[in-house]
């Protein structure tokens, strides 16, 4: 009893005096008695109360005075960056490594819990803007700062996006799901509980397909996808963490931004697959515009559960949970480190302790955060402030029809255009470029030409100079047409692209302004040729005297005289006519 009361005191965050402890003991007995009374009640069939319609509001961001905020966030510029694809070389090296790595007769089991911020305009339970990077606590209201008496109201858009995510990942969408309170004390949690989903999530089961080390398709099953609110952000003075900080401040801007938590089954066997899984999830979410996929800003976060077991065993080993995986690289590295660490423990005959560990990106190792003994009792229960979420079947049907093509299908499509593996994978993982690509293709069907210019020229400037492509699909298509028409040469074309990015102008605009179109007018070229031949009488004589090897000299002189704009084919033809004819 004493121990129980001490644990209650810890959970409750209140101390009581000795006398009160005695009273509490008595009342706990009374509660026991209550439970017994209820137990003794004649058994009855549980009445399911008729569930009332769930209440959700539109995704509209307002400021604290209730004024509409029009510029609430949509996709951020920076999301065009972060090309997650690694080079082929690296891929192969990895493959090599994973083959040679000495796991001996151990088998790795990995499950990931991925949190993705949804791209709604307003927060999950209030109408505050979700805009990133505002002054601390600018995007807050009584609801998301946990003021006494404030109540949550569900954002319909967040549910819509979560259903879309569930459908894209082949989940069952539950027509009845429940928000629950997850109770724990932490300064960044203003209500001291997080509203999440526990027993009845919005989406159950499901799977996504990834390509593993052997480029084989592999299915990773999902346990669930549920909706929850994000916590605030702590700012510590003096230390990176709360422990030992001289002072800490809380920014509630992030509080209550909608998240989905995607929980996988333990189907992942290598760090490489884990990273591929993360990448694939990101691609799916980004392609539907429901998450910006920006791991640096924390829009996508990952916790990993990993354990080892003897090959052939069916029971899972003791797992550790790794937190703070803020990049794709971190996911892979942390798992590699942790597998090695666990293997060493197991090889030396010891047992792995169930722990939560933190990935330290600077030290490139995982550090212990808490052990099983310190694990929380979250005291989940259905949030009485929110009604259950009822999702009509019709809504799901409509959303299913909005689903875009899934990444691997798209990849096949790109390969079909004649793109290389590398290019196809790149486009698969960068859905916004893929859309751009398709927009150009709709005007100019030569996919190979598009990809040549896109990958070797355009992308190099995009990554180096700008995060966004300012060249419209129409402009790009016109440019390709001009090349096809031999109005400009490949060489000039490269200059055009460079100039366009330097001056932030359109491709065709550059061509027009600098008058870079090729001279294909026979008369005009003949005139230049005449002039060149007149200036080089000696060489003409030598040529005609049999030194035909200097033909290229005339070509060069002509091109020079035309400032490189003359159509080289025609120059050749006319020179031959004039010299040989």
């Amino acid at each position, binding site marked *: 009893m004493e121990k*129980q*009361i001490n644990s*209650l*005191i810890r*959970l*409750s*965050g*209140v*101390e*009581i*005096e*000795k006398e*009160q402890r005695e*009273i*509490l003991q008595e*009342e*706990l007995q*009374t*509660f026991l*008695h*209550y*439970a017994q*009374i*209820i137990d003794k*009640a004649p058994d*009855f069939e*549980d*009445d*399911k*109360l008729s569930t*009332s319609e769930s*209440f959700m*509001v539109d995704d509209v961001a307002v400021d604290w005075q209730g004024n509409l905020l029009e510029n609430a966030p949509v996709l951020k510029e920076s999301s065009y960056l972060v090309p997650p694809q690694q080079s082929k070389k690296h891929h192969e090296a990895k493959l090599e490594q994973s083959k040679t790595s000495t796991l001996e007769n151990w088998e790795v089991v990995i499950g990931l819990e991925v949190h993705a911020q949804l791209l709604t305009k307003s927060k999950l339970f209030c109408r505050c803007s979700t805009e990133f990077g505002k002054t601390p606590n600018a995007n807050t209201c*009584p609801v998301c*700062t946990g*003021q*006494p*008496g*404030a*109540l949550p*109201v*569900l954002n319909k858009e967040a549910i819509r996006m979560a259903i879309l995510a569930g459908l894209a990942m082949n989940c069952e969408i539950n027509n009845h799901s429940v928000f629950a309170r997850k*109770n724990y*004390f*932490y*300064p960044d949690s*203003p*209500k*001291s509980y997080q509203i999440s989903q526990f027993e009845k999530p919005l989406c159950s089961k499901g799977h996504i397909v990834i390509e593993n080390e052997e480029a084989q398709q592999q299915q990773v099953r999902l346990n669930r996808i549920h909706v929850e609110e994000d916590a605030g952000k702590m700012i510590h003075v003096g230390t990176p963490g*709360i422990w030992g900080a001289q002072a*800490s401040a*809380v920014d509630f801007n992030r509080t209550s931004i909608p998240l989905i938590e995607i929980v996988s089954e333990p189907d992942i066997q290598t760090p490489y697959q884990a990273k591929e899984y993360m990448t694939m999830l990101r691609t799916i979410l980004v392609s539907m515009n429901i998450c910006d996929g920006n791991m640096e800003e924390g829009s996508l976060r990952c916790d990993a559960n990993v354990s080892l077991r003897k090959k052939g065993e069916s029971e899972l080993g003791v797992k550790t949970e790794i937190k703070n995986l803020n990049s794709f690289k971190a996911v892979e590295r942390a798992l590699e480190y942790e597998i090695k660490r666990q293997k060493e423990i197991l090889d030396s005959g010891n047992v792995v302790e169930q722990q939560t560990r933190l990935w330290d990106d600077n030290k490139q190792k995982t550090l212990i955060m808490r052990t099983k003994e310190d694990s929380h*009792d979250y*005291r989940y*229960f259905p*949030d*009485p*402030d*929110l*009604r259950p979420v009822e999702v009509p079947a019709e809504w799901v049907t409509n959303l299913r029809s909005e689903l875009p093509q899934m990444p691997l299908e798209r990849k096949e499509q790109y390969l079909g255009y004649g793109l290389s593996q590398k290019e196809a994978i790149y486009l698969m993982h960068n859905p916004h470029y893929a859309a751009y690509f398709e927009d150009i293709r709709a005007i100019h069907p030569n996919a190979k030409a598009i990809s040549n210019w896109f990958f070797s020229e355009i992308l190099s400037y995009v990554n180096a100079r700008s995060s966004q492509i300012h060249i419209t699909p129409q402009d790009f298509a016109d440019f390709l047409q001009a090349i096809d028409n031999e109005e400009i040469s490949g060489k000039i074309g490269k200059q055009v692209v460079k100039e366009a990015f330097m001056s932030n102008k359109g491709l065709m605009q550059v061509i027009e302004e600098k008058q870079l179109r090729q001279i294909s007018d026979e008369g005009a070229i003949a005139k230049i040729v005449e002039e060149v031949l007149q200036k080089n009488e000696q060489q003409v004589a030598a040529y005609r005297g049999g030194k035909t090897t200097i033909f290229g000299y005339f070509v060069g002189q002509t091109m020079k005289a035309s400032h490189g704009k003359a159509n080289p084919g025609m120059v050749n033809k006319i020179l031959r006519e004039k010299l040989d004819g």
Partner: protein
Amino acid sequence: MVQSCLTQLPLQQLTKLLQQREISCREILQAYLDKIHTFNNHLGAFLQVADREKLLSLADESDARWQKKQNKSALDGIPIAIKDNIHVHGLKTTCASRLLHNYSPPYEATCVEKLREAGAIFIGKTNLDEFAMGSTTENSATQQTHNPWDINKVAGGSSGGSAVAVSAGMSPLALGSDTGGSVRQPASFCGIVGLKPTYGYVSRYGLVAYASSLDQVGPMARDVYGATQLLNAIGGFDERDSTSIRSAPVALEALQRNIAGKKIAILGEISNYINPHVAKVFEQSIESLRSLGAEVTEVEFPFFDYVVAAYYLIATAEASSNLARYDGVKYGQREERKTYQEMLTATRSQGFGKEVKKRILLGNFVLSSGYYDAYYLKAQKMRRRICHLLNNILHSYDAIVTPTTPNTAFTKGESEQDFMKVYVADVTTVIANLTGLPAVSIPCGMVENLPVGLQIIGGALQEQQILNIAYQFEKTQQKQFIPKLENIDTQQQIVHKNIATQNKAHQSFSEQLQQVRASYKAQPQHSRIYNNDLANHVAKEVTICGWVHKINKLGGVEFMIIRDATGFAQVVVENSSEKYELETVVRVTGIVAREKRSPYGEIEIAKPQIEVVGHSYAAPPLSMSTNPEGFNLPTVLDNRPVSLRNPQILSTFKIQSLVVRFFSGYLRSQNFFEIKTPKIISTGTEGGSNIFPLDYFGRKVYLAQSPQFYKQTMVGSGLERVFEVGPVFRAERHSTTRHLNEYTSLDFEMGFIHNEQDVIDMQEKLLRHIFQNLQQTYADYVTDRTLDLAIPDTIPRIHFLEALEIIKSRGGKAVQQDDDISSIGEQVLHKYCLEEHNSHFVYVIGYPQQKRPVYTMPDERLPGYTRSFDLLYKGIEITTGGQRIHDYEMLCENIRKGGGSLEDVKDYLSIFKHGMPPHGGLGMGLERLTMKIMGHDNVRHASLFPRDIHRVSP
């Protein structure tokens, strides 16, 4: 219209007069404000009353609208009192909790917003049980609320303040909140109408949550009409509350409908719970309903046992989570601590009252893993069962009636003794909360001059139905339920008289002044005696004074233990009706009697007359009668002003005072003069960085780290021997059990010595004097332990180098990097001296020169070492002293060698320039000495208000 009558009118008549412009909103408001002014002190209904001028100007605006027939609603200009857990712009929301005592809400509750739009005037915020947890309003951390029918009875709760406000005519209407009966039960106790609407009928946005699935804001009024008007003004769907529902207002004309033929159920099993007197009134009410043509039938409802069980399991579970947000981070009274977890626990432990804490703990129990299924889920299942059953009944009947409560208002303090009685009393009301059904309480009769309420429960959203029945029932009542406030009037006259006297005094003081001057001579002799002197007054009447330390109840007798500076006295109180909070300051006159069974010197005070001279408004955060060893030190220090009251804690400081007394006494006998030297200085005495800078009118000055220079100056002045007891300040960033940043130094300095040995001789004699005197006297002050005050005939004196050898040979880590004896070394040395010399004391003499200040006399016999010493007591350094350089040239030389500037210390040097006797002295840390004498393990125990790197308050 006579104003006192105005405040007795039901709303229906009030609005009629207003509509006919026979009275103005200003007159109404003034009448109620006057009532508040007169009675709130005695009844404690309001926690906060809005600014009178502002309210009056709002009333004037309403009058202007009425004048133009542009009134916003029937409630335009009507004053409304709001329970202090509902947010109103411009007023604080305290929830009657210490934790929120200063909370100004950043938004307004939806129901209040609606009333504001209707033109209502918010007259003030009313008292409640803290966070609405309770049914007596006794759990308010702020004030007591009294039932206007009998001020010894509770008002009910938790909306007790609102009920009293309406009942006593301080507000025509009020809002309450009802989680388990908190509107209906106080309405019943105070004889007014209170309604709990269907769950979701009124938005909960802005109502501070207790148990979210049960909470509902409800109207309170003198009459059914008033409750209906108020309900219509606050009801309706709110998109800020997902659980609110769409509803139509109650049609006022529907209240007039005949209720003949209505089918009304009474629940058979309820009679088991009802007090027989109340049952009788209930029977009469049923007869009245029948006389109106209603058919009243008894139906089965064998579920009352389960109702309270399910209610408390669910309510506490939700409360534990709802109240978790009060963590001190965002708002509320924060208790500053070093870590979040400590701050959280301290904030909540000190901010919440005991009932709230208890419910939070119980709720967390219900939700905790391993219990959730057996408690919470089962209770929810039972709740659905009860809903099903009641809804079934209400399919066949228009309403269910019950007595609102099984009893009339409780006597004050009753809930404290028998909380189960109070819990079970909720049985009649909680069924409506568990099922979400609407229920209204309406006065239906009296039992022993206390009102009884009739509860009418209807189907979901059937507010109109139950209000119709209530309205028709109300018409059958012969009397109006208006409490007579005359019994309060007597006290009120005193108040009036005081005001009258005050006014007169403003006009002319002459008469009063005469009386005041006469009183100087006629002051009665104080015959108070101390507790430790009672044995000399057996069988006499005496007066003692002190604090109520403890109250032991034995049979019908209370033993009140009174604590004063000298000890305890047992006072025997028979048939006490008064309740004394611990620590109340009293003056007790009674007979001193011998009583073998009294643990306090076999003496007690009988037949006492007890006079409270200082009220205690809350139980102290720490127990005074508990052995403080069980407390943790931070808690003791955080609550220092109160923890010092613990006699065991205080005894340390009694001993500390004696140490100072004997120190000064001895030195005076040896021709020392006591001096007081400044603590704000322009330069550091001993240099170094361990000195606190201070802004002094824009200049940088320092807090003295030693009185050294001034002591020497005073030796030179011709006093020859001086001592000082004063503070010194050390800016060292230590965080040990031995260091303080401000401590009391016992300093002396003496001239005409041969060498340091004279100083040591003087201190030895001084210490022997202090210790021997303490040995003789301490038992009068310290009763819980024996003090080890042994002091050897001669204290061993060893040289520093010898000390290092001893420590090394005993395996101790002898030195720290900078050639000093480490704290471990000190302990090794202590052990050595105890074993070899049977002494807790040891002098270590001859510290190296570089470890000592420049003014320290070098030892010419051992170059590099000095004539300085430390005294270690029980392994800790308590004194540093030595012989000082007195020769001007030598001192200058030494300062130069040490790299110092002569210019910086020229004032100091001037003492020496003009002739200075050989001299030496020392400083002794009072707190460390006290700590070791008392056997404490931390010097903070021996400092009244310790100052360390973390702590500057209290």
